[in-house]
């Protein structure tokens, strides 16, 4: 979008562009823009206004849903160039176009722009229309903001303050509908708060392909409902709570847990599968309250699945490892643990040691494991983890960083293929030392009896598990919400995430102690920050060569490999 020159004729825009005037400011907008499915369709007035930097309030319009045009909040006035008897645009004596203002307003979300169009969004009529639409939306609204979970991120609140009337003229009795309607296992509906924008219906029908919701009854009694005898239950239901502009659809998981204005927002990623949906973590005072999706059109659009969204409670489980330990460690102290492990590793012989690292570790941490493995001459692998995939976001690979582990040469080309080999070599006495980072190998084919034969077993994990319990040294690790780093998703996109909460007790991010171990064992330091390790990784691993940490920004970068 460029500001056209004053001298330019609005009808002589460059090919593929249209010149429109929004509130007196002339802008060039593309003739077509992607719709919710990414198909090129004629640019609408709402998109043109957004490109011109003018906000048009809207409820039913959502860039990633089909246009419904039912809320009428986006009404604007407009005019088009008047045509003379010769069907040519009429001109003023100074050459400017004669604009014929339309007698009726139009909904900006569904009306395409045309060359020379003028859009007026701040006329007294538009202001009055917005006030009136809001007044209608509020006549049967229960106004229970103090108990509504949406308060603070409610479009009805925001627009009422910005565009609404100061007081209500409605003296009649409000229509009451059902509250606390159990729509499905994860969604609660309050029919009174609903403004019938139909976003939820369109989302589940058109994006998910589960035509589960509809509007029943007529007039003031209209209400959202699941089809009789069914419940609203697919793996994407909680997205409707996000796109619901009011508090009608709320998450049962987050319901009455915390007011949204207390939540600290951290840019992060979902670590529950290889897709790597971009999320915002809402936390307060070191406690996680919710995950919500963050728009990234290259990965997850505006959505995330319920499975990943609700997969965070384990982080505060009571069996978290909170200090270093193990059968050879006398007191739970990092210095002693690192010294002991470094001394043990110096005695290992190449060919008699193996490393299993989790594909839940970050690229940077796996790179440090790679440094260690190369120095010690140790074969490596990851533990595979899979589950049913669906056709929207959820991916069969339930590790967030399998691709990164492969690019770094940690995972076998078929992740997990080396594990049975390790088990056999441990059993026949070839492998005498084993390092396990972030996994429980007893659940991946290496029996505890075999582990007991090892001379040297070091394990780390977030929770206490079968391997850490019998290891000579174990180290407490961190969930991804407790550290910084980057993951490479299944399509090879490198994305970074930030720290939301502090780890419990003495637990420290893997990067912190892996870099220390690498330094003690190999004698070479790669620094202790995510950035310095990333730089070292770039210099060494071809897949990361052209990508700097700063390039990752909020949406990540696709690797060239």
């Amino acid at each position, binding site marked *: 979008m460029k500001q056209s020159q004053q001298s330019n004729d609005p009808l002589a825009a460059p090919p593929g562009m249209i010149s429109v005037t929004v509130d007196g400011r002339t802008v060039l907008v593309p003739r077509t823009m992607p719709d919710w499915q990414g198909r090129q369709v004629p640019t609408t007035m709402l998109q043109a206004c957004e490109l011109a930097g003018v906000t048009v309030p809207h409820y039913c319009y959502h860039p990633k849903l089909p246009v419904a045009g039912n809320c009428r909040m986006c009404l604007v006035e407009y005019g088009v160039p008047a045509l003379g008897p010769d069907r040519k645009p009429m001109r003023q004596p100074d050459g400017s176009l004669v604009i014929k203002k339309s007698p009726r307003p139009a909904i900006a979300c569904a009306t395409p722009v045309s060359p020379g169009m003028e859009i007026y969004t701040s006329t007294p009529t538009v202001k009055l229309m917005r006030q009136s639409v809001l007044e209608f939306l509020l006549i049967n609204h*229960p106004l*229970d*903001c*103090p*108990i509504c979970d949406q*308060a603070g991120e409610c479009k009805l609140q925001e627009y009422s303050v910005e565009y609404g009337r100061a007081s209500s003229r409605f003296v009649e*009795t*409000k*229509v*009451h509908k059902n*509250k*606390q309607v159990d729509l499905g296992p994860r969604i609660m509906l309050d029919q009174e708060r609903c403004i019938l924008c139909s976003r939820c219906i369109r989302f589940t029908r058109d994006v998910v392909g589960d035509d589960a919701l509809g509007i029943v009854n007529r007039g003031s009694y209209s209400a959202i409902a699941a089809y009789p005898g069914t419940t609203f239950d697919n793996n994407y239901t909680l997205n409707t709570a996000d796109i619901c502009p009011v508090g009608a659809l709320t998450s*049962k*998981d*987050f*319901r*009455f*847990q*915390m*007011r949204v*204005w*207390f939540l600290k927002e951290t840019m992060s990623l979902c670590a529950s599968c290889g897709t790597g949906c971009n999320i915002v973590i809402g936390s307060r005072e070191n406690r996680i309250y919710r995950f919500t999706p963050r728009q990234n059109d290259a990965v997850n659009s505006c959505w995330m699945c319920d499975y990943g969204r609700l997969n965070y409670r384990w982080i505060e489980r009571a069996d978290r490892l909170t200090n270093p330990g193990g059968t050879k460690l006398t007191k739970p102290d990092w210095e002693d643990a690192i010294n002991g492990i470094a001394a043990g590793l110096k005695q290992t012989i190449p060919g008699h040691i193996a490393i299993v690292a989790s594909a839940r570790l970050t690229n940077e941490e796996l790179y440090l494991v790679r440094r260690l493995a190369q120095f010690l001459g140790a074969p490596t692998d990851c533990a595979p983890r899979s589950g049913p995939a669906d056709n929207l976001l959820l991916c069969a690979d339930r590790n967030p960083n399998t691709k990164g582990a492969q690019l770094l040469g940690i995972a076998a080309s078929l992740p997990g293929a080396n594990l049975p080999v390790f088990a056999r070599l441990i059993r026949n006495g070839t492998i005498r030392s084993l390092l396990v980072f972030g996994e429980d190998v007893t659940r991946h084919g290496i029996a505890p009896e075999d582990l007991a034969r090892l001379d040297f077993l070091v394990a780390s994990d977030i929770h206490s598990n079968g391997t850490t319990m019998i290891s000579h040294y174990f180290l407490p690790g961190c969930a991804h919400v407790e550290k910084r780093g980057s993951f490479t998703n299944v399509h090879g996109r490198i994305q970074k995430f930030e720290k939301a909460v502090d780890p419990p007790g003495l637990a420290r991010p893997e990067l912190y102690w892996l870099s220390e171990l690498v330094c003690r064992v190999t004698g070479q330091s790669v620094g202790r920050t995510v950035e310095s390790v990333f730089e070292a990784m770039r210099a060494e691993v071809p897949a990361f060569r052209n990508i700097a940490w700063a390039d990752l920004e909020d949406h990540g970068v696709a690797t060239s490999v």
Partner: protein
Amino acid sequence: MIAERPTLKLVDRLYLTAAWNGFKVTLRHFLGRKVTMQYPEQRWAVPPGYRGAPYLVRDQTGRTKCVACQLCEFICPPRAIRVTPPGPAVDPSTGNVEKRPRQFEINMLRCIYCGLCQEVCPEEAIFLMQDYSLTGCSREEMVYDMERLLALGGVHHDHVRKWDRVRREAAAQETFPPNPIY
């Protein structure tokens, strides 16, 4: 500024005149009207509108008025208030109000008696009352929990009772045609 030190004469240096003048003041007050209050045996009449300690109130039906909106927690400048919301389980005992705090604590050592909580409360559930002398033997004791705050706050007569009104309105619409309720 440099204060000149006057050279004192002999009478001045004896201090007798100064002592006598001091006794005169004492005597005048000793014989005059008594103004000292014998606190704490004697108490001061707290004027209406005085901003004392904030307490929670119930309405005349015994309902805890607070709905755990946490606006007071948000506005409180010294962060004296901590509200624990009830969590997702549906509590049928709350009726149509749906939400009630699980716990509500005010740290009276932090409170600065500004009254912002009372002002911001959309439910008229918290009021600064007349207590001005709060004591305790430990810091923990000075964090008042919900039970204590409600007991101290007592009943606030609510003339509107908006939630009851909504409940009656909704109940009337269960039948068709709706019964007028007024």
